[in-house]
């Protein structure tokens, strides 16, 4: 059940990543980092977060987003933040 929900979040996040970073073929994996994706820098990172906040109706705190190590950590954070909604 929990794995299903994580998959759901990954699907939705992939769409957001593809749209914001302008990469139609991007595949979101747990160990994906900003260094591996053209255009994923500190500037577009916040654009991503804003889009994620809107799509999932959640709010990130600065302390949460400064310690994200890879896409997997972001996925986990979104899963944790949307837990109450399910």
């Amino acid at each position, binding site marked *: 059940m929990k794995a299903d929900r994580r998959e759901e979040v990954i699907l939705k996040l992939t769409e957001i990543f593809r749209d914001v970073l*302008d990469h139609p073929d991007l595949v979101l994996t747990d160990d994906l980092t900003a260094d591996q994706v053209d*255009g994923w820098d*500190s*500037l*577009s990172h*916040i654009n991503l977060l804003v889009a994620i906040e809107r799509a999932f109706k959640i709010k*990130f705190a600065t*302390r949460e987003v400064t*310690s994200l190590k890879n896409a997997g950590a972001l996925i986990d954070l979104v899963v944790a933040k949307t837990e109450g909604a399910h």
Partner: protein
Amino acid sequence: MLFAALALVFYRLCPARYRAVVLLLLSYIFYCTWSLEAAVWLAGVTLLTFFGARLAANPESLEGEPSKHGKWLFLILAVLLAGYLFFFKLAAIAAVPGVGRIALPLGLSYYTFKLISYVLDCHWGKIEPETRIVSFASYVAFFPQLMGGPIQRAESYLPQLPPVRLAVAEGLPRIVWGLFKKIAVADQLGLTVNYVYANMRSLHGAQLLAGFLLFPLQLYADFSGLTDIAIGLGLLLGIRGPENFNRPFTASTITEFWRRWHMTLTGWLGDYVFTPLRMATRNAGTASVVFSITVNTVAIGLWHGFTWGYLVFGLVHSAYLVTEALTWKVRARFFRKNPNLDGWGSRLGAVMVFFLAMIAFVFFRAVHVSDAAWGLVHVWDGLGSVSTDLGVLIRAVSLRPLVIGLIGFACIEIGERFRPDIWMRKLYATWPGWAQEMFGATTMTLLVAAVYLLLLSNPGPDRPFIYEAF
């Protein structure tokens, strides 16, 4: 250098468990030789931060988040540290009533940035406040990084204590590489650069352009050389420091240039200035982007000192970065549709980035903003007399150091592209420890001899590193 050599011998003989204490003592001896008063300031601000962070942390922070009360204390501490930095930066340019001008404490910009990042990392719960005061004080005062960085984070430095493995075979060649950059390149090119900037208003177009083109090369050799020496010394002491440069002149955008130039400063400002500002204003759209980038680049400029030149340097880069931020999607789509142009785009981009960075560096280097503006306008003068003008310049500064500097710079670019040190390390990684050290020491001796021969053949006044001043 003599201090470092003696310190290293003593350090090597010392058992690993006492090395943190020795590191602290060495750092303070080094600092006291510069100024006893500044050492007292350094000790005071270190103690304030250490005990302030301990006070702000509470037992709950070990299990969950720090209490609201503690979070505020961390923020107050960060503001106090920023105030400390501002006070000395202002006191260096304007007299303090009743005291006069105060000399900038050595390494002020570097150690206060370390302290602020430590406090904010504690505030955000990224790290726990340090409990070992000796380790913490040695982090703040770590002498190889005090003069010119790199700005290492507490989370990367503290776990390395006590230093066990002293990477001599890696550290020694790194120091020599830094000395080569400084003596064989920066100081040689510096002769022409200093001449051009000192006599700007009496020079012509091509002469000005020569000085402007050479300054980024000199600055890179000088600053990255200082960083190499700091990283190399750190390795000898068993502390691995962060890299500060990654071949900046290969960048094809200004955004990429800043990811490759003075990386520990831009990384620091990105984490503690840009991201918090962007997060706080994230729903303001384009205005948030422009605002956050401008504050960030102005902070980069003013970090070097509170002068108009550094401010304009920051603003020029802000104009570049805002333009890139607002156009990146269009550019990305263009190159996706025309993949055959991508390689050419990168090459053309690298040339453009060099010239754009050069323009900003004119404001960084010139004594007055008006001189920089005058020079940039008059760079087009005398297009018909380029060879005569360059001949006059070369006669004034002499050709030899210029040629040595340019060949040396080519060596830097080739060396950093092909990294012979990496394959050399792979080659001798299988050797026993003593053989590796013998190899390192022999390489060092030969290279030092080569560098000193070069130095002896080019005697000149003592030329400090440019980034020592910050």
